[in-house]
């Protein structure tokens, strides 16, 4: 009888453990990596003209920082978890390239993971002390809110001179009329399905070359500067951003 009780208790223990371990919570981090058509890019490669865009223009990168928000996990049953937070990735200063979610996630299978490039309109018009401290704001004349990306460097212009460019993404605004007209330029980046295991690390790749490539072949001679007030340029950046990000390695 004693033996039976012991066996029963041991079985109970296993059953209990199994129940607890079905989808144990885990911390999840995102590791943002950057490349130029497959060649790894870090701030060590900055400040040297060594990349060639789709338009054949040689260029360097001197600054790259961008904002992502609202990382979203969706399960097969439709259950969705939205991480109501944001991360300003600063490649220039090598900060926030690894972003650990403020909340733990349940391990298991998710049919889709996504994030927002930039801020949606609700989030864009809040006041964030850390982003203000990083001078990330957009002037009220251009609708206010925050930058989505600042990519800067030098390129060789059509007079063979080294010239600065500032590829800044914001919400598109047309100031030509009596009233400002806006077009949304934030977009959702779908990473596809992932299997979250304990202490999961999800690698996100940004191919910087894509910002200059598809569907708009980017001519920095024409679109190198003063892009924030340029409505069409902002829409084109939005379009080119669709193929910039991809899911990389999933660890473990």
């Amino acid at each position, binding site marked *: 009888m004693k033996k039976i009780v012991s066996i029963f208790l041991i079985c109970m223990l296993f059953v209990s453990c199994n129940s607890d371990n079905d989808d144990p919570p885990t911390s999840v981090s995102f590791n943002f990596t950057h490349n130029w058509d497959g060649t790894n890019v870090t701030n060590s490669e*900055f*400040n040297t003209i060594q990349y060639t865009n789709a338009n054949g223009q040689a260029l360097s990168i*001197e*600054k790259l920082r961008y904002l992502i928000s609202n990382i979203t996990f969706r399960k097969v049953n439709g259950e969705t978890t939205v991480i109501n937070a944001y991360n300003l990735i600063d490649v220039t200063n090598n900060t926030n390239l690894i972003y650990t979610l403020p909340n733990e996630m349940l391990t298991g299978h998710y049919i889709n993971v996504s994030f927002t490039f930039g801020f949606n309109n609700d989030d864009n018009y809040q*006041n964030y*002390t*850390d982003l*203000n*401290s990083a*001078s990330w*704001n957009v*002037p*009220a*004349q*251009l609708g206010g809110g925050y930058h989505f990306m600042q990519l*800067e*460097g*030098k390129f060789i212009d059509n007079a063979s*001179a*080294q*010239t*600065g*460019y*500032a590829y800044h993404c914001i919400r598109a605004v047309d100031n030509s009329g009596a009233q400002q007209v806006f077009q949304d330029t934030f977009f959702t980046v779908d990473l596809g399905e992932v299997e979250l295991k304990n202490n999961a690390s999800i690698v996100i790749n940004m191919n910087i070359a894509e910002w200059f490539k598809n569907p708009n072949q980017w001519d920095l001679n024409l679109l190198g*500067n*003063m892009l*924030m*007030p340029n409505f069409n340029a902002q829409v084109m950046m939005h379009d080119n951003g669709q193929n910039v990000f991809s899911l990389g390695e999933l660890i473990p």
Partner: protein
Amino acid sequence: MNKYFPYIASIVFICTSCTDENVTEYVPTPIALEIPQLFEDNIIAPVIPLDNPQTIEGIALGKKLFFDPILSGDNTQACADCHTPENAFSDASRFSDGIDGRLGNRNSMPLFNLAWNYNERFFWDGRAFSLEHQAFQPVTNPIEMKATWVDVSSKLQQDQDYPSLFDQAFGTSTIDSILVTKAIAQFERTLISANSRFDQYLLGQINLTSEELEGFNVFMDETRGDCFHCHGNANNPLWTDNIFHNNGLDAIITDLGLGKISGDPANNGKFKSPSLRNLAFTAPYMHDGRFNSLDEVINHYSEGLQNSTTIDPLMKKVAQGGVHLSAQDKSNLKAFLLSLSDESFINNPNFKNP
């Protein structure tokens, strides 16, 4: 074993009691920085090192040291000689002269809102990390105060007041350079400027003139002044990004600035963006004080930009020599910039020599 327990317990109790009675560690009086509302609402908390919290005694000691020429080699020069309160703790001279009358090659930086320098790089070229480390350098610089820390510490130790003041501030009357710079840094963190006309406007307390308002528009307009990328905006009351830029002063760079400190040629000619607060009191301008007036500064960005390999991409109109502001835009921009000056800061009795 059990029979010894009461004895052991008694001994432990006595020891514990003795410890409590004998150790009365002195703790100076903590005091929080008075954070202005616009700062509280819009930017993250100031940087205060865990090993140097603000205290009433530490700040008072730091203030006394800041105004005391005892820190110089011949007792003739105080920090305040090159950082005068009426100049927002800058120097009206282009270059400051040291105790031997030798001149440096940089304009004395104004001192305010230093606790909000998040990257903690100080000096025009960023060569000091942390406010405490910054304060080490002028004392021993041969063209500035030209002292040695051994001598300074010895003089302070022999002074009739300082040992007790250090004791009150730090719980020890043994004076060294670390405690001196900690005290000065505590005082410097209290130098907060947030009461300009523009601050009052943002708080809804006053109206600005049409010229000042239009000048702010020029400042924020990417197609005109385009100043905001480096000098902040209404949501960043620091009016600087505290980052290093080559702003097109020279075609041939002789003073390497951050480049000399980092050893990276990509940083040659880069200097820290200064805050635009208190410009009414901080002439001359730029790292080398080359411009005597705000008009000269505005003209530089409008028509005087010089190209070089490390020029910041944000100097977007360098090929045209600058942003080419109209005379009206220049005038309005100047009016706005002057609205960032804070009379109450330079007249604050807490910041003056007692």
